[in-house]
């Protein structure tokens, strides 16, 4: 066997740099932790953010070819956008660890190491179209995430982690089976080659392709919490700490969307009507069922969980539509949603209280927020703004995403989809408004305002301030964001 010589330049190593930075950072952090005991969480947080920022710099600064490392890596437009979103979200969610009260998971260096590894996993998911790498990335991030959820160290956190884990394992099985089917049909595990091979076969046998798609839908559907694989979402959100729940509602999903986009886009464009119908049904079901269930929730966090399912449904609609505009809308929507969601979960984090004073079962029941405007007008107003923003009330952030999404639907003649999205927004407004109603229209149950601020700290307040600013003045960012996103999305051929 002759020796193999590979030109290092052809590997295009800078494409790997972002992940490498973070992985090394994580390793370094663990090593430091071994040496130096009792590192303060602020140090850990900040050093992690620094690594994330370095990573971000490497991502933004990347200007090499899109293919790298034997074509395993694919750094195209959506990969870049998704990475930026992932990194920014990570960087802004992480400082939530600096709450007023101390939570032990945030004191542990392992948490931050896992956090960084998780980001590496997500990044690998989005910068590849190789099903193997995607799988490993997915598992890396998921395993880290399960652990981090459990590290909250509450019975509910464990329960959440186990539920999440078990369903994740089943989803991993589905993923593997799906990959097997595609591999069996095409002899490849790289999406672009799969596409070519399927085209060469003229999409026959259809049932095989459909089966592969179905299992992939099962696997990604779990990640994106599509009905009926969504059942973990509310429980996991409820069990996790608010920062992590908020994080989960944004970052894993964007990674999932990118994979879904890569995979389903080719299928949607293959002209397989079946697939279009199934996706349509899944989208409608996800939006509607989640919305309707959210109506009857008694806990704000669970409500937000269901609402994030429904938002994910909107995003799947964008993938279903599959035009450049809709894919741009997806990223626009998610970026705007990220900030608003950050704000909302930060508010929950701020008002977190040691004991379940308001309800046996729930940490954040609606009644907890009764008459908040009388006790803390600014807090209530800000929370109200976040709620109305999530509801898609103009001119707050999410509205512009929704606007663009509905427009994308209309432009591709998905009129009924547009109407369904609109009607769902109308239903959704009820449960968001419900919180506003509690905060503004009811009488307070407790007169002690300090109960609500036991976890508040300056960093948290700053984060809320920033996200409320972005939420309110989102309109200013829409145009530049739209230009950038359109450029990158269309450059990568979606």
């Amino acid at each position: 066997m002759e020796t193999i010589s590979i030109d290092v330049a052809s590997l295009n190593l800078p494409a790997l740099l972002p992940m490498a930075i973070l992985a090394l950072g994580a390793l370094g952090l663990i090593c430091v932790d071994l040496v130096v005991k009792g590192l303060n969480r602020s140090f850990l947080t900040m050093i992690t953010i620094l690594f994330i920022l370095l990573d971000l710099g490497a991502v933004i600064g990347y200007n090499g070819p899109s293919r790298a490392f034997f074509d395993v890596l694919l750094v195209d437009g959506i990969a870049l956008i998704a990475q930026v979103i992932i990194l920014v979200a990570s960087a802004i969610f992480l400082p939530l660890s600096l709450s007023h009260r101390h939570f032990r998971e945030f004191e542990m260096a392992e948490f931050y190491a896992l956090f960084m590894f998780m980001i590496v996993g997500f990044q690998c998911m989005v910068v590849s179209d190789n099903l193997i790498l995607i799988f490993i990335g997915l598992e890396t991030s998921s395993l880290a995430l399960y652990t981090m959820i459990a590290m909250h160290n509450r019975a509910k956190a464990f329960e959440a982690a186990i539920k999440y884990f078990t369903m994740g394992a089943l989803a991993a099985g589905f993923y593997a089976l799906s990959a097997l089917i595609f591999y069996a049909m095409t002899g490849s595990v790289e999406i672009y080659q799969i596409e070519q091979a399927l085209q060469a076969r003229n999409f026959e046998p259809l049932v095989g392709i459909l089966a592969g798609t179905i299992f992939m839908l099962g696997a990604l559907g779990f990640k994106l919490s599509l009905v009926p694989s969504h059942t973990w979402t509310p429980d996991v959100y409820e069990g996790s700490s608010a920062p992590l729940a908020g994080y989960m509602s944004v970052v894993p999903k964007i990674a999932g969307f990118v994979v879904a986009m890569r995979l389903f886009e080719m299928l949607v464009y293959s002209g397989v009507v079946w697939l279009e119908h199934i996706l349509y049904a899944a989208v409608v079901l996800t939006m509607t069922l989640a919305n309707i269930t959210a109506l009857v929730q008694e806990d704000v966090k669970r409500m937000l969980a269901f609402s994030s399912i429904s938002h994910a449904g909107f995003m799947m609609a964008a993938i279903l539509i599959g035009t450049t505009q809709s894919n741009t809308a997806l990223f626009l929507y998610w970026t705007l949603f990220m900030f608003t969601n950050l704000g909302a979960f930060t508010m929950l984090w701020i008002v977190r209280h040691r004991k379940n004073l308001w309800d046996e079962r729930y940490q954040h029941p609606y009644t907890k927020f009764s008459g908040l405007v009388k006790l803390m007008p600014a807090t209530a107003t800000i929370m109200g703004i976040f709620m109305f923003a999530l509801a898609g009330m103009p001119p707050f952030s999410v509205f512009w995403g929704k606007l663009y999404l509905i427009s994308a639907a209309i432009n591709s003649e998905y009129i009924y989809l547009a109407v369904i999205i609109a009607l769902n927004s109308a239903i959704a407004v009820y449960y968001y408004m419900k919180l506003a109603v509690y905060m503004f229209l009811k009488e307070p149950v407790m007169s002690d305002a300090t109960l609500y601020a036991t976890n508040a700290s300056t960093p948290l307040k700053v984060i809320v301030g920033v996200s409320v600013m972005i939420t309110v003045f989102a309109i200013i960012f829409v145009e530049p964001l739209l230009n950038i996103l359109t450029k990158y999305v269309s450059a990568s051929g979606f």
Partner: protein
Amino acid sequence: MEHILSLLVFFPAVAGLLGFLVAKESIRAYGISVSVIEFCLSLILWIGFDSANAGYQFVEYYAFIPSYGMSYYLGVDGISLFLVILSTFITMIALIGLSIEKDIKNLIISVLFLEMTMVGVFLILDVIWFYAFWELSLVPMLYIIGGWGGERRMYAAIKFFLYTFAGSVLMLVGILYMGFLYYEATGIWSFALPDWYLLQVPFKAQLWLFGAFFLGFAIKVPMFPFHTWLPYAHGQAPTIGSVILAAVLLKMGSYGFVRFSLPLFPDATVYFLIPVAIICIIMVIYAAMIAYAQEDMKQVIAYSSISHMGIVILGTFAMNAEGITGSIFLMLSHGIVSGALFMLVGVIYDRRHTKMIRDFGGLAQVMPNFATVYGIMLMASVGLPLTVGFVGEFLSLVGFYRISWILTLLAGTGIILGAVYMLVLYKKSFFGQVVHEENRSLKDLNAKELSALIPLVLLVAILGIYPKPLLSTIDMSVQKMLVLMDQKAIEPATKELIMKANSIGGTH
């Protein structure tokens, strides 16, 4: 004068924000001052307005999201000018007459935000922004109804909010579809209304779009059978909420018809003319009958609002200058009159904490001034000539007569039924002997209430006697719009109808 429109829109909002810093004791004075300044600004706008120019004036244009055709586009014409003034005026009056003490700071700030959204709706020419203001107006109203309302205020507030929101999201779909059509036709994205005016929409699309917009507007107006939120909202809202709701917010819907449905979809408008007119007739008669059956004074006025809005919409669909001008004038007059009536109910509610008609009787003896003002507003409400109510009603009915005499006759029964329920209400509450001892010691209008009501009374008389400056300004823009509609019409039947509706004589 360059940026007066922006100033008009955002002054109340900025003032509202700053209001957070004002001490609770002087927030009332602050609110009134701000609203007075805003009102003066709107008067300055009127002074600067060139009433010989039918187009948009004081236009401000700033491309906001050029790649998607969104812009910040303000402009005022004869149709919107007076609605803006009405908004600022009613807000001012409502604040002057405000009698609530509880959480007054929040209330006043909400009202100021509400004012921004109202003025914004009437001034904005970019449709997306229009939608934004439209939706945004719900939030402060939700708070006002829910925060200071009666017993079932939550239910009323939520119903109001959800109902109108649900209607308007479908309108949003319509808006975006319209934007898409514009894009398809021109290759450029634009959500600027004047741009849209130039677009001839295919007939089929017109029908759908008309439907989508109709739903949004009809719920806001509110038209039968989408009206059931209104009695609750009015019944539960505090006085200031009812006043603004009836006087201005309902007008957003009818304004929407004039601004959007008619000029954008002339063929669909003509196509749906008779069904819409029939709905209007139902509204007029049905709401009047219900008003007659009410036991709550405020509900009578709430239902009477529905009844009157029926005539407004009927006038709008008359497709001629008389009818449309009349309907816009009727919007103004209904704003003044219903606002005043709700304030009057508020006056008595403040004293007795009941609105039930059976709890009153013989009030004319105890509160003669109150009874007088009430009587004047009542007469304006039933459309007595030389009050403001007559002009618009007369013009609307005149206008629609050209379309169909029988429907006009049926709508005209509204003036009979209006007299019936209003006079019965007046008789039951003001005439007769004082039956309830509590009523014997009621105080007549105090200075604060008088200062809020007298301007309204004066307006009722002045605009009833000399409506010409308003009418001619409105008429100018309306005629321009009619010409536009005629030019845009695709179907020959539409052109024919517009021609017929605007000409004297001939057969019909």
